[in-house]
């Protein structure tokens, strides 16, 4: 199966990532106004997620049937005590959206980290060693790509049973392919460079070459893929929870809130709209940041 060249960062990464290049990257990122706004949104989301128990005005699970399906504060019948209104059980939507950010970010970041570690290790080793392991790994990648990823996640979660960490595990282990492919391609192009040959000739051990000379050169593409993968994992978790097969119902998630809200679309639009907006905004902000990172990591884009 063929890879998609433009959706992956260019294989021409700088030879070494120096400290000044890294701070330069941040400066370029911030000069891109859209990316700066996106980063701001992400920081806000992260703060909301971290401080959820203190920021949220109510317990997200506290039901109060006396105030069920109250509209947001600015609509007729709304009140300042429930800024974004309440759901069908009278639970405060603002508190639920804030608490939902925790699960989304937790699952997204953990899944991306897990996939990154597994994928980068496989890609480094396969690219460096080549041979049978490389062929086996690439065949496994092809097979995995032959599976619509949502279906794979659905099937595994459906069978393992729903659960927060099951979802993280599934999204982590199904996401390794893109990391492995990019790292492998990068290592293949670096492997025959003079400085690697020299390191080998002077008797540097393989492990040291991998760690000191190859790994630093693949961190830029890894960071880009990782960022974009966080968004993908957040959307995937929301999809699973929307289908009722992800995180258990007792935990507040945007996906499950959307599924609940869809039942009340005719009478109470806000139950579905606020978690949906939060989900879209988060995914959009992460994707903008990831795209900006890719532009920074790509030296061709750098010069433009």
């Amino acid at each position: 199966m063929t890879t998609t060249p433009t959706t992956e960062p260019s294989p021409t990464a700088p030879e070494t990532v120096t400290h000044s290049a890294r701070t330069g990257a941040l400066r370029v990122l911030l000069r891109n106004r859209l990316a700066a706004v996106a980063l701001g949104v992400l920081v806000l989301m992260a703060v909301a997620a971290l401080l959820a128990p203190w920021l949220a005005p109510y317990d997200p699970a506290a039901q109060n049937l006396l105030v069920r399906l109250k509209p947001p504060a600015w609509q007729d019948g709304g009140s300042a005590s429930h800024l974004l209104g309440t759901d069908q059980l009278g639970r405060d939507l603002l508190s639920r959206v804030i608490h939902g950010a925790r699960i989304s970010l937790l699952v997204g970041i953990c899944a991306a980290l897990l996939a990154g570690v597994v994928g980068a290790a496989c890609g480094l080793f396969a690219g460096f060693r080549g041979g049978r392991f490389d062929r086996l790994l690439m065949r496994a990648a092809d097979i995995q790509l032959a599976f619509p990823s949502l279906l794979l996640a659905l099937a595994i979660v459906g069978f393992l049973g729903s659960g927060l960490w099951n979802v993280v595990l599934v999204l982590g282990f199904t996401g390794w392919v893109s990391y492995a492919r990019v790292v492998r391609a990068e290592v293949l192009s670096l492997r025959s460079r003079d400085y690697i040959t020299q390191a080998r000739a002077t008797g540097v051990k393989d492990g040291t070459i991998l760690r000191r000379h190859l790994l630093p050169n693949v961190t830029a593409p890894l960071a880009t893929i990782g960022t974009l993968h966080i968004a993908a994992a957040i959307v995937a978790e929301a999809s699973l929870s929307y289908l009722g097969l992800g995180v258990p119902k007792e935990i507040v998630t945007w996906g499950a809130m959307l599924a609940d809200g869809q039942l009340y679309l005719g009478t109470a639009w806000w139950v579905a709209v606020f978690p949906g907006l939060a989900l879209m905004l988060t995914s959009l902000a992460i994707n903008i940041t990831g795209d900006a990172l890719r532009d920074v990591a790509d030296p061709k884009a750098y010069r433009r």
Partner: protein
Amino acid sequence: MTRSTAAPLLRQVAARLGTAIGVLFAVATLAFLLVRLSGDPVKQLLPPDATAAQEHTLRAQLGLDQPLIAQYGDYLWGLVRFDLGDSLVYGRPVADVIGERLPATLELAFGAMVITLLIAIPAGIYAAMRRGRAGDTSVMTAVLLGQSTPPFWIGILLILVFSVQLGALPASGYGTFAHLVLPAITLAVYSVAVIARLLRSSLIDVLGSDHIRTARAKGLAPGAVVLAHGLRNAALPTITVIGLEFGGLLGGAILTEQVFSWPGIGRLTVQAISDRDFPMVQAAVLFFAAAFVLVNLLVDLSYSLLDPRVRAQR
């Protein structure tokens, strides 16, 4: 086609087919193992107060009392004969149930593909020709939005606007053209974004090459240059992605069918997973994998027809 070009092409088809069958075999094995790892369907099917004897009878009926390797053999032998077993819920061959649901899913996928091509190709060409200007920026912003928005959220928004507020289109159900509109748009949004973006970037690459400069120097109109010389060369990477995106489209179909209660295979699959109807889950997984492998096989083979350079290499 002369004999000299036909022989390598045939060999290539054979090699691709071999890989495709290998992939499907691996998927079938994985589906078999996953289902067995996931707990006991007998306990799921019987009421909690069922006796051990009842459990034993059902286990024997389903063939679950056999050793694993014998079950696997039966399963593979069944696959070869296109016998995927009986659904535990419907009590009928799963192939029949899937066959009944197939037209709805195909209709949805086809509708989405038509919308995708109608919007993505003009949008991609337009953005490439206006590179860096306002038109390009607005197309790329729309692309980013489309790529970041999960399909079920798009579906819910469309229902909110077109069904609840305007009352113009049905929010669920199946049968008429009006029922198809919202689900097809929902499913198309992501692929429109991906394909427009890719067509734009491959066109921009192609438009910088020598033969385009020659065509321009000859005095060809800009539109003609793009259509006659640019699009042909930008088609290859775009078609690759259409093939790869097909998997995403299938995943999107699962969600879209759920949002609009569309009676297709996606919804059948989600229901089967909840019900632990394992023959149905195995069959659905295989079905989706086979569809994906088939589309990508066609994509790979289409290169040779589209690009003489690929043909020469092989």
